């Protein structure tokens, strides 16, 4: 069973392959054609005209009140007293609490650290999104970047140290997301290979693990991390809460990634394996040199989609008391000085998530096309 996102993407791919490129009109003719298309699209038939009018009416009921709240009556600068008197949104609140929403309880004098971490992760993400840079060195860069970020946040080599229960906001969201995805992927490749192995004992183990993980809610996994993991480690040694959560999240996500990878493995024709065997390659060499490079290449867009889903899911860290971006936003509105501006805080967080995820899904579509083109050559 594939994930919903995956299936949707593959259908879109087929449709796009079928669609013919637009006729090469230029200049005034093209402009007129576009205008005609727009007119037909809005007022082509009387039914269409009616739909347009009804949609405009619905928009009229929703958009102006929202604009009035968000822009016209909004308070852009000032104090909470100014906001209390106004009828609109209190963007002054965002201005005052922006650093808190971004970095939560991290000591304000050290805010440059989480800021640097965000810069490093953003740079790594941009580099990873560039197919030209897909080399071994990139993995090394990730390793160095993440370990460095972690040490910088903790202040191990540059005191004062900051305990991880004081970390928060966007850096925590990004660290948990990237680390768990990064560690989950190799695990997932192993699971996917195990699930297709001809060793039945190994196969059954992989199936049990994957189906178990996929059947239970994310929150249950977080509870396991909170309640069971501390009891299960030898001697009851208490590992840090964030790390405990990250261990379980890595295991959880690896099951989902494994299914995506398996989808890629299934696209490789059996002839490839036979050919490799005829050349005298063993299982591991065949897998490493022939199967995986092709399989992973086809699933990169699906992996991007999966990663977007995971980024959205990290917001559940709030339920176990970790101050990720969403939880920080919620906490910001409990400040006695600025009490109850939840809508504004949520609006900001929604905007950040939307930019990241919408950008990611656009990128995934672009990448798919690019990979397809170079594949067909």
């Amino acid at each position, binding site marked *: *069973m594939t*994930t*919903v996102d995956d*299936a*949707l993407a593959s*259908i*879109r791919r087929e*449709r796009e392959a*079928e669609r013919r490129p637009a006729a090469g009109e230029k200049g005034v003719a093209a402009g007129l054609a576009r205008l005609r298309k*727009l007119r037909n*699209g*809005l007022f082509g038939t009387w039914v*269409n005209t009616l*739909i*347009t009018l009804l*949609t405009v009416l619905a*928009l009229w009921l929703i958009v102006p009140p929202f604009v009035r709240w968000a822009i016209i009556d909004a308070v852009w600068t000032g104090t909470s007293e100014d906001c209390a008197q106004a009828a609109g949104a209190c963007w002054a609140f965002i201005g005052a609490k922006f650093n808190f929403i971004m970095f939560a309880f991290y000591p304000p004098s050290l805010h440059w650290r989480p800021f640097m971490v965000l810069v490093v992760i953003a740079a790594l993400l941009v580099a990873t999104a560039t197919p030209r840079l897909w080399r071994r060195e990139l993995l090394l860069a990730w390793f160095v970047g993440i370990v460095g970020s972690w040490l910088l946040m903790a202040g191990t080599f540059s005191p004062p140290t900051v305990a991880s229960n004081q970390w928060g906001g966007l850096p925590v969201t990004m660290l948990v997301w990237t680390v768990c995805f990064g560690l989950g992927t190799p695990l997932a490749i192993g699971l996917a290979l195990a699930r297709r192995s*001809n*060793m*039945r*004992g*190994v196969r059954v*183990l992989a199936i049990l693990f994957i*189906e*178990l993980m*996929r*059947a*239970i*809610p*994310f*929150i*249950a996994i977080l*509870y*396991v991390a909170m*309640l*069971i993991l501390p*009891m*299960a*480690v*030898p*001697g*009851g040694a208490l590992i840090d809460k964030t790390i405990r959560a990250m261990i379980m999240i890595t295991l959880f996500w690896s099951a989902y990634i494994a299914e995506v990878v398996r989808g890629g493995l299934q696209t490789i024709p059996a002839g490839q394996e036979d050919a490799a065997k005829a050349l005298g390659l063993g299982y591991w060499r065949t897998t490493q040199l022939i199967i995986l490079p092709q399989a992973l290449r086809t699933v990169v867009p699906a992996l991007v989609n999966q990663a*977007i889903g995971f980024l*959205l*899911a990290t*917001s*559940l860290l*709030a*339920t176990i008391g970790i101050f990720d971006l*969403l939880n920080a936003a*919620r906490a910001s509105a409990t400040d006695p000085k600025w009490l109850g501006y*939840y*809508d504004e805080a*949520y609006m900001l967080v*929604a905007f950040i*998530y*939307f930019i990241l*995820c*919408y950008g990611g*899904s656009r990128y995934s579509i672009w990448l798919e096309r690019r990979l397809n083109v170079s594949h067909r050559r």
Partner: protein
Amino acid sequence: MTATADSPPTGAVRPGFAARIRLWLGPRIGTQIGILAGVGLLLYILGANTVATMDRIGINPGFGFLTRSANFEIGETLITFKAGDTYLYAMFVGLLNTLRVAFLGCLLATLLGVSVGIAGLSRNLLLAGLVRWYIEIIRNTPTLLQLFFWVSLSKAFASPRQAQPVLESIFLTNRGIYLPGVTLAGGSWLTLVLVGVSIAVFVAFILIARRRATLTFLRGLAAFALLAAAVTLAGWLTGVQTALDIPELRGFNIQGGMVLSPEFAALLVGLTVKFSAIIAEIVRAGVESVGQGQWEAARSLGLRRSQIMNLIVVPQALRVITPLITSSYLDLTKDSSLAVAIGYPDLVSVINTTANTTGQSLEALIILIAVFLTINLSVAALMNIYNERVALRGSGGR
């Protein structure tokens, strides 16, 4: 091949059994046994550690606590629950709450999602564009964030005393949403028989019409209208009294009608909206999965757009849509566990409370995992049966 594979038989009865295991396992017996033993050992160590820790903090491992009485209240329940009932019963109440929100959520998300999906397929550019943005915004923001938003919205309503009714009978208040309900009284076994027969006739009609491929949307709608009329008539003939139970403001509170708590309403609306966007995408993808050639062929046969939809596109699209929608129903059921973050007492929330009050977190979580595994596996099994039927019909031809 390792040594174990070719080791000679050691006894008279054993070889058969060992050989069977060897056959089942396949190649590389030694490696496999090593891996299985390793995993077993890891689980054993983790389990032993857990039990040792439970011992140390004075908790008896085992499911005996299920029959002890739970000293907490559950905010809202479908069946009565009071502090002092057993933990097992409390979990059952939580499960019913989960199923309640999951069932209603799937139903409403499907209605909204299919409507939105169809609207997105419209040739009207404005409507299609609007739907596009709705889907993108909903899909690219976290579900939990949306739930928080709905909760904060439901808290922003007026208190019951000041609430103004919408459409004369719906009250949106910060204590919950009051909807008009229907109360039924009277009737007899004859009512049940008549209603049962009507439904049976309706189902039989739909099945036969589908078999003969004469079922269109309009005929289905007409049959449904007839069913509704028959049920009403049956009730009227056998003397069932129906009364509208409309909520109204009496004193300081609102009396009558159905009440949805703010948490339940927020969770239901949140799940409905989130999954309507996903289902809308599925519907669109399903319709688009039917190739352009099918449309062209149908048009050349002189079919109208509505006929093409009903007779050619929808039947084929359903083959794509059904498994995906089922998968999203399962996701919705899993996501209903977000209830715990906004204070609706679903199964996860009750289990969490149980784990915290008894300390039996391992057992509580095992129950939680078992329940979700059962739900998932049974739906998957049903799905496989359905898929086989659809596949057969597709390849068999008529």
